[in-house]
């Protein structure tokens, strides 16, 4: 695929669920992405290493065990302390495991911390699909400009 995105997909350190990761892998592939699936219970240092090694266009963190907020906070604060100079866009999605109001608050907090998007509401998949479409276009334009 010409302008496919290289996506690194990962679970959180505390979540052993994998069916969400399989689903997301298929979904990303259908939307023109090449996927590297790190799997479940991924320690934070492994997430670092993989970003360094794979230099993905996008990192997708997916979790459904209810600790998504806490885990995502820890991942980002440790990434921002790391030696990585440029971070790829990072998004999180799945279940926050709390009330809608609290979810809205947490979403704001995660974005402030450095995440590009948070997908947890009911229509999250559709929003995520649009997000991917836009990101692909931006990347394609960038490549085009470089070529010119």
């Amino acid at each position, binding site marked *: 695929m010409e302008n496919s995105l290289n996506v690194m997909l990962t679970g959180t350190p505390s979540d052993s669920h*994998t*069916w969400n*990761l399989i*689903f997301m892998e298929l*979904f990303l592939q259908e939307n023109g992405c090449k996927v590297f699936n790190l*799997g*479940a219970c991924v*320690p934070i240092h492994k997430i670092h290493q993989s970003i360094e090694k794979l230099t993905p266009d996008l990192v997708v963190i997916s979790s459904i065990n209810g600790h998504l907020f806490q885990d995502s906070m820890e991942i980002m604060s440790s990434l921002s302390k790391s030696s990585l100079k440029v971070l790829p866009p990072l998004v999180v999605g799945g279940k926050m495991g709390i009330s809608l109001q609290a979810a809205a608050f947490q979403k704001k907090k995660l974005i402030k911390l450095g995440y590009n998007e948070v997908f947890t509401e009911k229509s999250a998949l559709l929003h995520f699909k649009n997000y991917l479409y836009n990101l692909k276009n931006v990347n394609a334009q960038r490549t085009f400009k470089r070529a010119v």
Partner: protein
Amino acid sequence: MLSEFLKTHSGLYVQPRMGMASVRDMRKGIKSVRDLKIPAIGTITLDSYTRMGQFEEAKKALRAGLDLNGFPLLAYSCQEIIDSLSSLASEDFLIQVRHGTAKPEKIFKRLVQCNLFVTEGGPVSYCLPYSRTPLEEAISSWKKACLILADYPTKSHLESFAGCILGQLCHPSILVALGILEALFFQKNGLRDISLSYAQQYSIFQDLAAVSAQKRLAHLYLSKEMSWHIVIYTFMGLFPETRKGYERILEESVNLATLSGAKRLIVKTYEESFQIPSVDSNLIALTKAYDFYSVSPKNANYDEEEEELIFSQSKTLIDAVLNLDKKIENGLYKAFKAGYLDVPFCLHPDNQRLATCRIDQRGYLQWISVGKLPIKPKNDSFQAFSTSPLTSHRFLQMLEFNRKKFDSHRKTNQK
């Protein structure tokens, strides 16, 4: 000892999943199962800190008065456990410890110190789905753990969890082959009393064919010294949402256990799809399962063709592993490396993930691709593949297959 025990007791034994943080609650729970007056096995399920080897974390949580999702075996003294829990076991009532640990040596050591000798797991089945532990490390730890149990030949029992690997969507030929291979691993490492598990999938006809093939293969491969039985698990994937749907799926798992000649059934509670089950909901599930057992059919139509297919595919897989290396522990490791064993949808780094399967219209699991598995799928499943690749939408439908099937009355009610 559990298999020997079940040989002398006729009928089906039912068993819950059950684990509490405090010894007192754990004792109460086991006692209430024992006092049900139906053929039941008691269960102690360990908490996730203990499973992960974080024994200090479990202690800390306990001291802070936090609740745990199971019993912290290493947070109490052996004497306390022996006095309150192990002593509940008798000639008529056995207790199994369930743990989910990839590297279980420390836990097994503790078990025998606490007079608890009946447990479960396996080098592959407790490594691939629940951990990132390299398979080689898990195999070597399980070897040592088996030897700990083997020192107590008349008391110990080890169940292979392989027939439940990932809980759902795994082709029966893999479930059956892995079960026999783990049983051979147990045998090689000194165990003499074991069980083979099988988790209810999406069609009772395919499940019956699979368990029947599994029993034939157990007779073929296991030494005559081995005492073994089959344990069935009520479906472990996405559960029906209605109470009626729950009862129907539970009933079908009881029928599967009865018709396949299994001696034990691990039940699920209605609450389990929402939360950790209470003691009461476990007691209800056990009683209900036993009621279903008393009226379960004694005859069913068998799909002999399917049984032959699963038998021959599983046998080919087992032989391929045994031919890779004289030592089964090396064979298992090499087989995953070569893709001769491959668990569909399993994301463990040591799993090749080239083999995939789907559910057909009958509810049978069929290969989409066998990857490097040394088997040939049926012709029709290849044809099906060319027209129906796995999409995220199809995958969701597969996850929801049993929920839709057993909650189907909801739709008809609305019409």
